[in-house]
């Protein structure tokens, strides 16, 4: 019983976001255009509500932009032309996936740089550790040698222990 109600709740939670997605009734002449429309509207950011993409937002401006993107796609414009259209009007800001340029080089290169720094630190630590290890094992060998008794001593020990 408990499992069943849990299941129902789970299903309701998965369905809930569907109710929020903006619904448009755009009819595309080809399935390819429909596909590109959904990719574009998901990758472009709504200028008004900045944490949503154009596909998800219900704001009037997102609605207008969906209409414009639909119009351009049906006119046979390429994805790049659609993106260019929006960047010309709203700036690079509308791209959730920023273009690689001198302005965004830190953005794109940053993670690689940090990865390299991380790897350098990691290797630094590892090599240091292995050096310490070898020092320790040398020391261990030394003390083992010290602990070993000579034949003479062993006989003395035997005598003492009876």
């Amino acid at each position, binding site marked *: 019983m408990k499992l069943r109600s849990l299941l129902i709740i789970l299903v309701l939670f998965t369905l809930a976001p569907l109710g929020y997605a903006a619904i448009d009734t755009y009819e595309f002449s080809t399935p390819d255009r429909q596909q590109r429309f959904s990719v574009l509207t998901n990758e472009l950011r709504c200028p008004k509500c900045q944490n949503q993409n154009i596909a998800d937002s219900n704001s009037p401006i997102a609605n*207008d932009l969906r209409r414009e993107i639909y119009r351009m796609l049906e006119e046979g414009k390429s994805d790049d032309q659609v993106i260019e259209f929006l960047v010309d009007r709203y*700036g690079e800001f509308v791209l959730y996936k920023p273009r690689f340029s001198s302005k965004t080089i830190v953005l794109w290169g940053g993670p690689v740089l940090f990865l390299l720094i991380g790897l350098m630190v990691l290797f630094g630590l590892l090599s240091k550790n292995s050096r310490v290890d070898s020092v320790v094992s040398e020391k261990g060998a030394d003390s083992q040698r010290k602990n070993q008794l000579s034949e003479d001593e062993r006989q003395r020990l035997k005598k003492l222990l009876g």
Partner: protein
Amino acid sequence: MKRLKLFIPLAIFIVIAGFLYKGLFLEKDILPSALIDKPFPEFELPTVKDPTRIVTRKDLLGQVSLVNVWATWCPSCRVEHPYLVKLAKQEGVAIFGIDYKDQRDQAVRWLNQLHDPYIFSIEDADGRLGIDLGVYGAPETYLVDSKGMIRYKHVGVVDEYLWRNTLKPLIEQIKLEEKG
């Protein structure tokens, strides 16, 4: 040297905290306009008061002007409206309106009741001109020079402070440039 190394995490923390602190005060709602120093977009639209009159980009040229995006559904526009009336009457500023995604009868009533500071208001019913201008919310105000180049964009209410500190000095500077 070893001691110094211990401070590395603290240094990283301070740098990150600094950025985050600055982030608290960034006005991220206000986007820089992509259209500054670009020509005002072409359009061919009716005016609000006389739908038979079609205006184009050429009708905006010839003087330094403000182009104000407004709508009757926009509460902030109601707030800024009296100030626009004052600017037009007392300072003699040329102001054009863009009635953005609005209904004509309501817009006409608004202009009749609250006074009309605009030389004319362009009726942009489906928001197409708004998209070309990069409008993402009303009110927005564009400063356009006599050749039709957009020189400045303000998102939000135009008030005394903005006029004194930004718009007026800019207009004077542009007028000087155009004379020389």
